[in-house]
């Protein structure tokens, strides 16, 4: 089920995995590293058992091709560290219309990725995704780290801008990691491979947004490159982050001025979001308020999407 196009000799590489999720934080971070280190394609997981086709090309009555979401491995030998990367365009699911991996298929795919880690005698696996939190999009995101073994805790505490679940107010070290990011930690633990999930913070009000959130991807890339001891130019990601921030500002301005939402509610949304500028731990607004605000913002995202579709 894994098709290799190369068989390089790698020395205890680390494997970095990215798959789609909120703000495309994981895929953007891992793909950025892949481009920056000029990683080469190693192989791919054959899609049929995991994914449905997402595109048909029919020319003059002839079914030319059917395309599937890709799940590809890449590699790079560097002076300091050999790297393996895995980037998937979708998370597999036994249930239709689920963004995050669910069920047997997801577990099978996680184990196929681990088979590759085993084959190349990987030292450690890193996964990356999003941590939805009550923060503001103008603040620098932190990176939540969850390892799959206790011995990694002390090491993680030494890194800059990393928080453990126990550092987050009200969590007491508890939490839940949805989808393949979580499943991978568990499956790797079962097979005695060290693994760490790094999640960049994204403001709760952007969890349904159609844009990537490169600011959080950048935070993850910084942590990863520091841990791995590799040096890459972060400026293109910074530029992208600046542009997305402008888009978010403009979107929020439109929302605050939208007459489709009653003035009182708009003021509440504005106050709640503004409040996020001065805090970076959970707790300033209640979960109920968060849900209510999200309802309005998501509705606005949908209207905007519909408007754009209409314009096409």
């Amino acid at each position, binding site marked *: 089920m894994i098709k290799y196009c190369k068989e390089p000799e790698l020395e205890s590489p680390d494997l970095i995995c990215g798959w789609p999720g909120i703000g495309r934080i994981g895929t953007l971070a891992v793909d950025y590293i892949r481009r920056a280190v000029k990683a080469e394609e190693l192989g791919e997981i054959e899609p*049929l058992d995991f994914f*449905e086709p997402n595109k048909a090309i029919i020319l003059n009555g002839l*079914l030319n091709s059917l395309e599937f979401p890709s799940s590809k491995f890449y590699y790079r030998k560097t002076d300091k560290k050999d790297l393996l990367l895995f980037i998937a365009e979708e998370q597999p699911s036994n*249930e239709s219309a689920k963004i995050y991996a669910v069920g047997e298929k997801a577990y099978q795919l996680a184990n196929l990725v681990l088979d590759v880690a085993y084959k190349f005698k990987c030292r450690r696996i890193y996964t990356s995704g999003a941590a939805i939190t009550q923060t503001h999009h103008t603040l620098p995101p932190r990176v939540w780290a969850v390892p799959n073994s206790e011995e990694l805790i002390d090491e993680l505490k030494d890194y800059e801008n990393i928080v453990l679940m126990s550092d987050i107010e009200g969590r007491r070290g508890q939490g839940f990691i949805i989808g393949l990011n979580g499943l991978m930690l568990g499956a790797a633990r079962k097979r005695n491979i060290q693994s760490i999930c790094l999640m960049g913070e994204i403001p709760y009000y952007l969890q349904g947004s159609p844009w990537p959130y490169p600011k959080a991807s950048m935070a993850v890339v910084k942590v990863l490159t520091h841990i791995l001891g590799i040096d890459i130019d972060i400026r293109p990601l910074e530029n992208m982050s600046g542009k997305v921030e402008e888009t978010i500002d403009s979107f929020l301005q439109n929302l605050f001025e939208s007459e489709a939402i009653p003035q009182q509610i708009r003021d509440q949304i504005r106050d709640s979001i503004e409040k996020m500028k001065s805090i970076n731990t959970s707790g300033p607004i209640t979960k109920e308020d968060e849900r209510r605000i999200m309802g309005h913002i998501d509705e606005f995202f949908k209207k905007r999407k519909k408007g754009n579709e209409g314009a096409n």
Partner: protein
Amino acid sequence: MKEPIEVYRQPDLENASLIVGWQNSSGNLGSKVVEYLSRHLQARTFGEIEPVQFFPLNGVEVENNIAKMPFSRFSSGDRKDLVIFESEPPSFDKYRFLKSVLDTGEYYCKIKDLYTIDGIVSPISHTSPRRLWAVYSDGDFQKRLRDYELENITWEGPPTLSSFLLWLAQNRGIPGLSLWPEISFYLSATEDPKAVKSVLSFFNRRFDLGLDFGDLDSQIKTQNGNLALLRKENPEIDDYISTLEVGLSLNEDDQLKLAQGVTEFLEKMLV
């Protein structure tokens, strides 16, 4: 995982063509064509794909006062060269489902080719002729069928279940054709017997079935009569249809009004 195919009896088939009709397709076209063919061939079910792995069995749907269960059945009848598969489109694990269709087709029915039935909802009037669009799995098959006056589709986008099946068949070297008759958009929620006839006419010629379209012609006549009555009673509907008949298009609101008006009227006539 348990094998999802259950075959009750070995069908007596040689060099068969598999005809696939999906339930709940636009204008109920897949079911109508397959029902018609099954009746003509006196087809009996010989096997099925178990629903448990492919449908959310969290209850049953009630339709026309009767509880329904999703089904995916193979049947064959008088002809040794035709096998019919009728099913609801699976909700999940589509690859395994379609693989089971082809496994059954290859192993039990020795199929040589396959045909799927779908429908293209089109902004045409019910009085217009129905074009029959086609997607082929390979060029040779396309050449062999060039005398059938099928229109070639060119399209890029999300694949349908039939395209997925065609692609899987292609990988096994089984040629396939997906048939896409035009369905007038305001008949897509009820029935479009003219579209049904266009597909059946193709099969009639392709397999020399000797079909008698008397009952279908009578359905078309009845539907035309009902719509003529509606046009007489409702000048707004008449205007919309007349606009389509001269080759002009309707805006979204008018399309919706026409579709609603026709659907309500035809449903009332059926009661």
